[in-house]
């Protein structure tokens, strides 16, 4: 009796998932592997050439830069906040991180356009050259606005989990601060940090709204290419190129996520 109820409880979610996620996924894969009504790899081949390849490389490079910079800066900020004695500082930074990590999309782009854009408030003061924001590094600066807070949220609990006893034990054994960080703290923190890097990579990689509102097509990114292909900007006979590009993206994101999942389990063994 209970056993059958148990199955029933999970059934709606499974059915929903099969319908809403399964069908689009199947259509995506089938479409990407079809050209002119026949099974073929032509779309995939084309999606890995020329402008499409440049866009994919641009996306990967942007996401990697944002992920590494965001991870380093976010960890430093988290450490500065976690070790601080001021609860006010701690609470306000963590709350602000919660807000900013969830603040993305178009409003984020408008914030920075108003600040450092061509008629922005700050760009006039510091004499920023025209169009400086609408470049690769401009996008990095903008993406860090949500990436650093996200990293703070990831790292704060991990840094909290570093027990003072570990530091004391290391000090009693004659370790310097450098030894402690290199041999005790960093190995314990590494899984959380790598997990954070993957999370930042994923969110920068899949971001579309901010880039679209900011750079249009100035900086080649794969999400922008997919969107323009979806809205009809493709050669005749290559309508499925958007699906092929999407499949490429899923593969890249899947490879990165494959690193993340085992790491998450390792983190939970040491912290908490």
């Amino acid at each position, binding site marked *: 009796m209970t056993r059958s109820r148990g199955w029933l*409880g999970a059934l709606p979610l499974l059915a929903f998932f099969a319908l809403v996620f399964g069908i689009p996924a199947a259509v995506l894969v089938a479409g990407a592997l079809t050209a002119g009504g026949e099974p073929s790899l032509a779309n995939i081949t084309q999606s890995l050439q020329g402008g499409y390849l440049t866009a994919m490389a641009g996306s990967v490079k942007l996401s990697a830069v944002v992920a590494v910079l965001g991870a380093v800066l976010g960890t430093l900020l988290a450490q500065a906040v976690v070790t601080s004695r001021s609860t006010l500082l701690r609470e306000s930074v963590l709350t602000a991180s919660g807000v900013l990590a969830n603040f993305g*999309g178009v409003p984020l782009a*408008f914030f920075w356009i108003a600040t450092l854009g061509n008629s922005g408030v700050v760009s006039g003061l510091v004499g920023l050259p025209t169009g400086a924001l609408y470049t690769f590094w401009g996008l990095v600066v903008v993406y860090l606005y949500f990436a650093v807070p996200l990293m703070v949220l990831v790292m704060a609990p991990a840094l909290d989990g570093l027990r003072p006893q570990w530091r004391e034990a290391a000090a009693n054994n004659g370790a310097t601060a450098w030894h402690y960080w290199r041999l005790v703290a960093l190995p314990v923190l590494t899984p959380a940090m790598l997990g954070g890097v993957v999370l930042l990579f994923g969110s920068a990689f899949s971001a579309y709204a901010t880039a679209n509102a900011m750079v249009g097509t100035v900086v080649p990114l794969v999400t922008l290419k997919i969107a323009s292909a979806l809205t009809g900007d493709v050669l005749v006979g290559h309508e499925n190129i958007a699906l092929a590009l999407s499949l490429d993206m899923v593969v890249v994101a899947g490879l990165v996520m494959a690193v993340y999942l085992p790491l998450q389990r390792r983190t939970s063994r040491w912290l908490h």
Partner: protein
Amino acid sequence: MAALTGLEQVTAAAPAAPARPRLWRGAVLLPAAAYFLVPLCASLWYTVHTPGAGVSLAAYGELVTAEGFARSLLLSLSLAAATIVLVLLLTLPAMLAVRLSAPRLRPVLEVLCTLPLVVPPITFVAGIGTALRTGADVLAPTPFWATLIAAQDPGFPVVLVLAYVVLVLPFVHRSLDAGLRTMDVRTLVEAARNLGASWPHVMFRVVMPNLRSALASASFLTLALVLGEYTVASLLGYEPFAVWIVTVSGSKGQVSVAVSILSLVLVWLLLLAMSGALARRNPVTAHPVKERRT
């Protein structure tokens, strides 16, 4: 800034402590504060100050009266409400079932709830768009066709709700999982059942009150995601709040930045409301711990 003066006072009060870590902390916190606060202040200034015309709040007035403001915001809020209800209705029973009576399904559920993280929204929308077009062709002669069309009604696009449920599934799963970890679900449910509680009673009076904070954070994440979601909605051709911002920005720069500030304030207020609601409940749960200590 106030936080920094607080730190200086600590230095004066405890001179014995080494000074280097504090210098280091200032060197991290000051640039961080500048990086995060300057765009905020600059955007605020941008909306109220027009070169040559001085300071005015006209952009905010214009925003509230702009064509489509109320309609798009209402659409976003109702989409968010529907998404929250649907995602909780789907995940909570499934997660309970997995813990109570079908443990073998647990890995399946975990994989399913992780998959949407691997799929960037734009690739998901590529799949949905193609599926909807193919579906319309395939289902044209059947009664399902009307359902498919009704689900794409611009007034209330059910398609978006379904897509959003998939997108928030990982986050909802993670926060509910964290909540369920903190309680002994099996004992609670069996005790309630033995005392004669019906299943709805168990859900609403036993399980959900214990999951209050997990449910709140799941709802907050869903709300924030749906309010800010642009990719899926714009590429499927609907106009909720985040898409409307872009439409209106084409003509009025100041108004669009004003909307952006409003949406940041909105996210912030939501987070405050959630944590406020949790803080008020906390003393009740924290009370036994305090008693044990004294």
